C-alpha cells in the first residue's frame, strides 16, 4: 500500500510539474500582460518600469518559482476576459462538464458490457454481425460529426430534443446540476450520446475480443466440465477476467474522453470547461488556459488512481503493496 501511495504521489507530482512548466511557458510567451493592463498609450520607459516592478524582467527560474508559489495557493491570476480569478471561472463550469461525462459513461457502461458479452458468446448470430458492422462504422465517424448529425436529425429535423445549452438547472451548494429537471435531462441526451459515440463501439469491440480470448482459456473449459450453469460461467468466471484489460484501457481513455468534451461542448454550445477553454484559446486568455490545464491534470491524476484501485480490487494477483505478488 505504501509503495502504491508513494508511487501515485510521485506520478502526480511529475504530471503536475510538467503541466506547471507548460502553463508557465504559455504565460511567458503568450500575449503581453502589460497590454492587457495598460493598453497602448503608455510609453516604452514606463512599460519597462512597470515590468521591473512586476518582476517580468527577473530570471526565468525566479519567475517560475513565483508562479509555482501562487499556483499552489490556487492563485492562477485573473481571467483577462471575465476579470475574475481564472480558477473560479473554470470551476464554475466544472459541473457542466462532469455531468456530460457522467451521462456518456453511463451510456457506455450499460450498453458496452451486455452487447460486448453477447457478441462474444454468440459470434455467429445476426445481431453480433450487425453490432460489429455498426461498431466499425461508429469508430469511423468523428465525434463532432455525430454531434452535428444528431442535431440535424433530432433538433432541426424532428424537433424532439434541444440542440444547445444545458436548459434549466438547479444549484446544490456550489454545484449547478441539470439532473434534477426534465428540461435539464432532455438537454443532456444528445451531448451524452455524441460524447459516447466513439468510445461505445470501441469498448464493445474490446470487451468482445477480450471475452472471446478468455472463453478459450482452460479454466473456462474446466468450468464447463464442472457442469456449472451458463450464466455463472459467462458472467462470473469469464466476465471477471475480461474486465481486467478493459479497466486498464478505460483508464487510458479518460484523457481522450476529456478531449472529446471540448468537441462535444463546442458543437452543442454546452457551457462547460471545454467550451470555455476553446473560447479562452481564441481570446488568448492565458490565465484561463492555464487554469483549465491544471484542472484537467488533477482530474487525470485522480481518475488514474481510482482506476488502479479498482484494478487491484478485481485482480487478486496484484497486491497494491507490491510485495509478494
Amino acid at each position, binding site marked *: 500500500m*505504501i*509503495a502504491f501511495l*508513494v*508511487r501515485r504521489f*510521485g506520478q502526480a507530482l511529475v504530471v503536475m510539474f510538467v503541466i506547471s512548466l507548460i502553463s508557465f511557458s504559455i504565460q511567458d510567451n503568450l500575449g503581453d500582460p502589460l497590454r492587457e493592463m495598460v493598453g497602448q498609450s503608455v510609453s516604452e520607459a514606463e512599460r519597462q518600469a512597470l515590468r521591473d516592478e512586476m518582476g517580468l524582467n527577473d530570471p526565468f527560474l525566479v519567475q517560475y518559482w513565483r508562479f509555482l508559489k501562487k499556483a499552489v495557493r490556487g492563485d492562477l491570476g485573473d481571467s483577462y476576459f471575465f476579470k475574475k480569478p481564472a480558477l473560479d471561472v473554470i470551476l464554475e463550469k466544472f459541473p457542466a462538464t462532469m455531468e456530460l461525462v457522467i451521462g456518456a459513461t453511463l451510456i457506455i457502461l450499460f450498453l458496452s458490457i451486455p452487447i460486448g458479452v453477447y457478441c462474444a458468446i454468440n459470434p455467429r448470430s445476426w445481431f453480433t454481425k450487425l453490432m460489429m458492422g455498426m461498431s466499425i462504422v461508429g469508430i469511423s465517424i468523428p465525434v463532432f460529426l455525430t454531434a452535428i448529425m444528431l442535431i440535424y436529425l433530432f433538433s432541426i429535423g424532428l424537433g424532439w430534443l434541444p440542440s444547445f445549452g444545458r436548459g434549466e438547472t438547479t444549484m446544490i451548494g456550489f454545484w449547478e446540476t441539470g439532473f434534477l429537471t426534465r428540461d435539464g435531462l432532455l438537454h443532456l441526451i444528445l451531448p451524452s450520446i455524441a460524447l459516447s459515440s466513439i468510445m461505445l463501439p470501441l469498448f464493445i469491440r474490446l470487451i468482445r475480443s477480450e471475452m472471446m480470448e478468455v472463453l478459450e482459456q482452460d479454466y473456462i473449459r474446466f468450468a464447463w466440465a464442472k457442469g456449472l450453469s451458463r450464466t455463472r460461467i459467462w458472467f462470473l468466471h469469464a466476465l471477471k477476467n475480461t474486465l481486467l484489460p478493459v479497466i486498464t484501457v478505460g483508464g487510458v481513455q479518460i484523457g481522450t474522453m476529456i478531449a472529446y468534451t471540448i468537441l462535444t461542448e463546442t458543437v452543442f454550445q454546452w457551457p462547460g470547461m471545454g467550451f470555455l477553454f476553446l473560447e479562452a484559446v481564441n481570446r488568448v486568455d492565458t490565465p484561463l488556459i492555464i487554469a483549465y490545464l491544471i484542472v484537467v491534470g488533477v482530474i487525470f491524476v485522480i481518475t488514474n488512481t481510482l482506476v488502479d484501485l479498482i484494478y487491484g480490487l478485481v485482480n487478486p494477483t496484484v497486491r497494491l503493496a*507490491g*510485495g509478494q505478488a
Partner: protein
Amino acid sequence: MTDMSEPYSQATGELLKIRGLSKAFPLTKGFLEQLHFEGGRLVRRRESVKAINGVDLDVKRGEALCVVGESGCGKSTVARVVMGLLEPTAGSIQYDGERIDNLPPERLLPYRRKMQMIFQNPYASLNPRLTVKQTLEEPMRFHNPGIGNGELKDKVRDVMDSVGVDPSWRDRFPHEFSGGQRQRISIARALMVDPEFIVADEPISALDVSIQAQVLNLMMDAMEQRALTYMFITHDLSVVEHFGTRVAVMYLGSLCELAPTRTLFETPRHPYTKALISAIPKLTQGRPGHIKLIGEVPTPINLPAGCFFHNRCVYADDRCKVEKPVLHTVDGGCRVACHGVQEGRVD
C-alpha cells in the same frame, strides 16, 4: 554402434571447467516496490532469484555430461551462462584452459565456432522468416566471410544430409516442417561451424515419444562421427541413463551429486537423487513405489539456510539446517554434497 558407458578411454582431460559459478536475477522492480515496512521502519529490500549458487563442474573431452533436475533448479541457466548468453554473477568458466566468461564479444568469436547450442522448443528456435538455407548459411558466412558460394552450398547439403533432412528442401520455411524435422534443422545449424562442444538444452522434451528416439539417435551419431563433447540438459532421467556418460544432479541451483551414469543409477547416494530416480515411471506393472518427499520446494528468492534440501529430506538433522554441505568424493568415483552421506547416516 559404440558403447558409451566406457568414456574414460577417450576422455583426455577437461574441456570445460566451471568454478564457483553463481547467477542471480534481480527481480526487476522499481525502487518504490523495494520499500517495505518492517517493525515500524521503512527498509529497502532488494530481491533476486538465485538461479545458480556456486557450481563447480567439469566437462571432459569426448563425454556426454548430463545435467538433470526439476524445473527451477538452474540447469538451463548453467547452459546459458556457459554459452555466454547470460553473464555470471560470480565464478569463472574456462574452455580448454582459457577463461572465457570475461572476454569481450570479439575475443569470444573463436570460441563461438567451437561451442554451439541446441534448444528446447523446435517451434521457436528457427527464425520463421528465414529459409532453411539462410538459417544454415548464416553461421558459416559470419565466421568465414570469404567463403565461396559453391563451398557454402556443398556444406549446407552435406550437413542437411547428415541430419536426415532432404537437401532439396533448403528453400523451404520452418513452418513447412514438423517438430522433429525442425529439431534436426536446429542441430544442423549447430553443426555448420564444425563445433567440438555442444550444449543441448532439453532438446527432446518438446517432442513426441517416437520422435524423441529419432533425435536422440541423431545426436549420438553426430557425437560419434564428429568427436563431439556434449553438455546435455534434461529433466528426463530415463534418457539420461541411456545417453550420458556422467550425470550431475542439481537442486535449487546447487550440485547434489556428480557421478558416472551407471554408478548413479545403481547406487544413488544423495537422498534427492534417490527420490528422483525412484520417481521415474517404468514399464512395470504395479503401483509406483517412489520415495516420498515431504514439504514443498523453497523459492529461489528466499533460499533456506544450510542444505537447500533439508526441509524435504527425511534424514535432515540440526547440522543440515545450518551448514551448507559441499561436494566430497565417496567411493565409486562419485561426488556427493550431503552431510548424511558423509557421516554415514544415509546409506
